[in-house]
């Protein structure tokens, strides 16, 4: 099959004003001033002093193919080149090198409501925005009722949009965009708008679009949306393509690359970590973190993913009553979770001596997204023999835990649960598992 979009050695270079970052207009002030002094230099061929300017590659040598029907999620940190890539694809800016070959009608949605004018009514803005997004007038007329119904602003159709609430504004804007009918759709972060109910609706519409065999390129920080919508993921880092594969793997890769750049590696040295004022033997040597599929976890973990922690320590004499505890504190330093080896019923390992690796296996870490600080301590018998207060920091990242595309926005942790309507005597649907009531744990 011939690819519908071909990226070949695509590069984009920006000229920086002095050592400043690209992008914002103020940062070009120095460049402007210099140019104003010699405006005709700019008109003529580029002068040598302009060539010596600091340059910055926003994209470097991007090569990949998109096949018809692919729904590709593009991930990367801020400044990794995602937006530049979309801008080049949308023909807003030119590449510096390489090319893109596009075989089909492409519509890009870098923002909802581009070209909306506050003075114009909802009706007028539908037409204007539709035309700006590349719809034909006849196309807009034929889809007009559908757009209005989707936007839920029928009553205010003849009111200037400056009187709209921000929610209505966004709904109308998305409604127009959602009814674009291109062969290739390029979308940037637009789902980060509107209330939850509308976001759901948008995701649903996106899903419909992607299931309809349309080719979609989707840039987002919203891992839930990427996981839900895309079957393929591409990770950009510092302007280079660093991963291209299935969406789930791409998300993991992205999270690891993000953590790799920021916090710590997946192995934490505890031997040299700071301890409290009490002098105790430094027994805890190191801890290692792994997530799903035994991939090293470098600080970022998906909500609901497995967490495996391997703790290394030596034992100088044969003992069997050693315990390890790990506490998870949230950003307010409140303990939200404690895992402790004393809760493990099967301690049949007997007396042990020498270097040990004690493994804690959490099949699904269901804390809500956010940053957590880990404290680790070790007891032998009733004595606490070692304690590291600020041993590690992990970041739980939103994922599609419930399989609905909606991330929790409240509370401390997530758990699987169900909702249903009780109908007469039919009671619960048969698929509902009986809820097991935990045994009351007798006080120790």
């Amino acid at each position, binding site marked *: 099959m011939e690819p*519908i979009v071909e990226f070949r050695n695509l590069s984009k270079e*920006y000229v920086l004003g002095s050592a400043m970052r690209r992008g914002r*207009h103020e940062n*070009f002030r120095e460049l*402007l001033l210099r*140019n*104003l002094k010699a*405006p005709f230099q*700019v008109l003529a061929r580029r002068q040598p002093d302009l060539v010596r300017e600091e340059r910055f590659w926003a994209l470097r040598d991007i090569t990949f193919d998109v096949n*018809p029907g692919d729904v590709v999620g593009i991930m990367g940190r801020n400044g990794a080149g995602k937006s530049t890539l979309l*801008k*080049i*694809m*949308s*023909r*807003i*800016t*030119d*590449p*510096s*090198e*390489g*090319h*893109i*070959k*596009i*075989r*089909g*009608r*492409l519509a*890009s949605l*870098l*923002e909802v409501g*581009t*070209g909306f*004018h506050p*003075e*114009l009514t909802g009706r*007028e803005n539908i*037409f*204007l925005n539709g*035309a*700006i*997004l*590349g719809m*034909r*007038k006849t196309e807009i007329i034929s889809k007009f009722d559908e757009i209005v119904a989707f936007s839920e602003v029928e009553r205010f159709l003849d009111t200037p949009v400056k009187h709209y609430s921000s929610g209505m504004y966004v709904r109308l804007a998305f409604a127009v965009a959602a009814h674009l009918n291109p*062969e290739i759709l390029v979308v940037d972060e637009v789902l980060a708008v509107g209330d939850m109910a509308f976001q759901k609706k948008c995701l649903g519409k996106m899903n419909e679009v992607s299931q309809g065999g349309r080719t979609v390129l989707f840039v987002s920080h919203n891992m839930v949306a990427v996981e839900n919508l895309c079957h393929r993921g591409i990770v950009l880092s510092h302007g280079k393509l660093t991963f291209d594969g299935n969406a789930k793997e791409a998300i993991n890769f992205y999270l690891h690359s993000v953590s790799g750049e920021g916090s710590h590696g997946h192995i934490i040295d505890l031997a040299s970590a700071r301890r409290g004022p009490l002098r105790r033997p430094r027994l805890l040597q190191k801890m290692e973190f792994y997530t799903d599929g035994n991939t090293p976890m470098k600080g970022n973990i998906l909500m609901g993913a497995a967490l495996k922690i391997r703790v290394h320590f030596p034992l100088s004499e044969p003992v069997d009553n050693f315990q390890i505890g790990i506490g998870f504190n949230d950003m307010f330093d409140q303990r939200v979770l404690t895992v402790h080896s004393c809760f493990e019923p099967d301690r049949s390992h007997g007396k042990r001596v020498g270097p040990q690796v004690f493994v804690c296996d959490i099949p699904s870490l269901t804390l809500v997204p956010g940053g957590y600080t880990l404290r680790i301590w070790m007891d032998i018998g009733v004595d606490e023999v070692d304690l590291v207060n600020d041993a590690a920091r992990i970041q739980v990242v939103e994922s599609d835990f419930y399989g609905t595309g909606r991330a929790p926005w409240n509370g401390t942790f997530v758990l699987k649960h169900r909702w249903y309507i009780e109908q007469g005597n039919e009671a619960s649907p048969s698929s509902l598992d009986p809820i097991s009531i935990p045994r009351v744990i007798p006080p120790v």
Partner: protein
Amino acid sequence: MAPSFELVIKPRSGWQPIDWKEVILHRELLGFLIWRDIKIRYRQTLLVGLWAVLQPLVAMLIFTFVFNRLAGVHSDGPPYPLFAFAGLAPWTFFSNSVSTSSNSLVANQQLVSKIYFPRVFIPLGSIAALLVDLCFSLVLLFGLMIKYHWSLTYHALLLPIFVAAAFLSASGIGLALSAFNVSFRDIKYTVPFLIQMGLFVTPVIYPLHYIPARLQPLVGLNPMAGVVLGFRSALLGSPADWGLIRLSLLMSVVLFIGGLLIFRRMESRFADVI
């Protein structure tokens, strides 16, 4: 699925030809942009179309008083108010067009940085919307002609040529200035000054023969001179120096092409700089 078309996006630099295919493909959008500009301008102003005619009308009254009564400037035939208004109508269109269009790209930053379409639509659309104002002024001019018992001749059929020339001149300058304005915001401050200078070097408030004969050929290099002289000749039957007007019309075409080329050359950088 057979692709509807194939597009290659690759680096561009230097002079760019006009991409007519793109312009035709997006022609509906140009219509919508003009329609938007007209709607917005007339929606918020209480005086609606009156505003469009008030500007040249008040200018005409002031100039009649200052130049005709006080300074003793006379027309080349028709009553001075009529003479002045026939010049001020296209001049007002031109000056408003230049100031609006030179700021148009910056005013539409959001569109420039978020969506693709032929960029020339933005300045050209803003000028086309101002043609409505010109029509209102022409209606007022006809009213004044009735008041002064000045009859229209078949020469009026030439008017569209001069309207087109005014459009081309304003577009040529507007395109170039709007492109420069993206990188150099100072353009905004120099435009009113340039327009004011233009009013005095163009025979708007005085007849052509006030200019010394040896300098008259130079007037032909001013594209708006031909427009103003042409308007008067077509509507009021003023004597016309056709050689000068022809040169002036040619200049408006040259200006338009020049403006377009500069615009196209700078276009690829707009989104990066704006």
